[in-house]
């Protein structure tokens, strides 16, 4: 996907923007384990970094029972963004998942392998396991010029 017009691109030595297909988005989501959760509050949008795992067709993460996120997550669609950039080469990709998050019930929790449970970096109790299905998934990559 580019929005170049011909005259501008003659002058332009910058990278090319590509729209990624669903398979590639899913592969990239599985290549890392930290992303950013976006949700809306009455005071405007929020973003928080989150450790996650990709379990089946859902982004899975953990939060505390009484955190701000836990109160805002289930009433409206939320967004989850994962990216990786190289500032020197000015290249990188980003993937965005948007959908309705759901808490995992006890039965589904028991079905998770140990390796599939997200492991947040900071200490603290985060007993709420949340899944965000890959309902709407879009991605872009900037290629080097």
């Amino acid at each position, binding site marked *: 996907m*580019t*929005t*170049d*017009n011909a005259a*501008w*691109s003659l002058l*332009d*030595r*910058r*990278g*090319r*923007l590509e729209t990624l297909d669903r398979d590639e988005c899913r*592969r*990239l989501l599985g*290549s*890392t*384990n*930290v992303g*950013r959760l*976006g*949700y*809306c509050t009455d*005071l*405007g*949008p*929020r*973003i*928080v*970094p989150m450790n996650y795992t990709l379990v089946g067709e859902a982004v899975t993460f953990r939060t505390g029972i009484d955190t701000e996120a836990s109160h805002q997550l289930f009433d*409206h*669609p*939320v*967004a*989850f*963004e994962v*990216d*990786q*950039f*190289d*500032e*020197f*080469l*000015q*290249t*990188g*990709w*980003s993937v*965005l998942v*948007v959908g309705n998050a759901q808490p995992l019930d006890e039965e589904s929790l028991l079905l998770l392998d140990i390796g599939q449970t997200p*492991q947040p*970096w*900071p*200490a603290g109790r985060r007993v709420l396991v949340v899944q965000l299905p890959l309902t*709407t998934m879009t991605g872009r*990559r*900037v290629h080097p*010029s």
Partner: protein
Amino acid sequence: MISPYTTGRRDSDDRSERRFEAISREQCFDLLATNHLGRVAWQAADLPQILPVTYAMYQGSVYFRTTPDGILSELAQPTRVALEVDDLDQQTRSGWSIVLQGRTSAVSEPDALAHLWAADSLVPWAGGNRTLFICIRPDRVSGRVVRRSA
């Protein structure tokens, strides 16, 4: 920085305890000024959006460039947004993140535009006709660091 084409990064096996610590407002602005890559989140129609942008700080506000017909051009209308900037290291399971909440506007003042066209860090990585400058005026800034407990 790890190449964006590398996959399968692994966590460190070091599971010693890590904690959150707050970053002062002054430090937040220092980090915002020395970094140029962030993510803008906003509520677009019914769905939340998060997109990466390259930005620059100027006179205490955040500025970035976009195409007049792209999705980010919605932010030319005054909109509540959050900008997140971070440096997270999977190897050491540590890092920091800063979130700035504010309101957007399109930049039209000639002085600001003259300065912004010349700002190196505002040259977007992707090509295209990125002639629209958006300002985020901050209402609230907060940051935190995750690191191994001393």
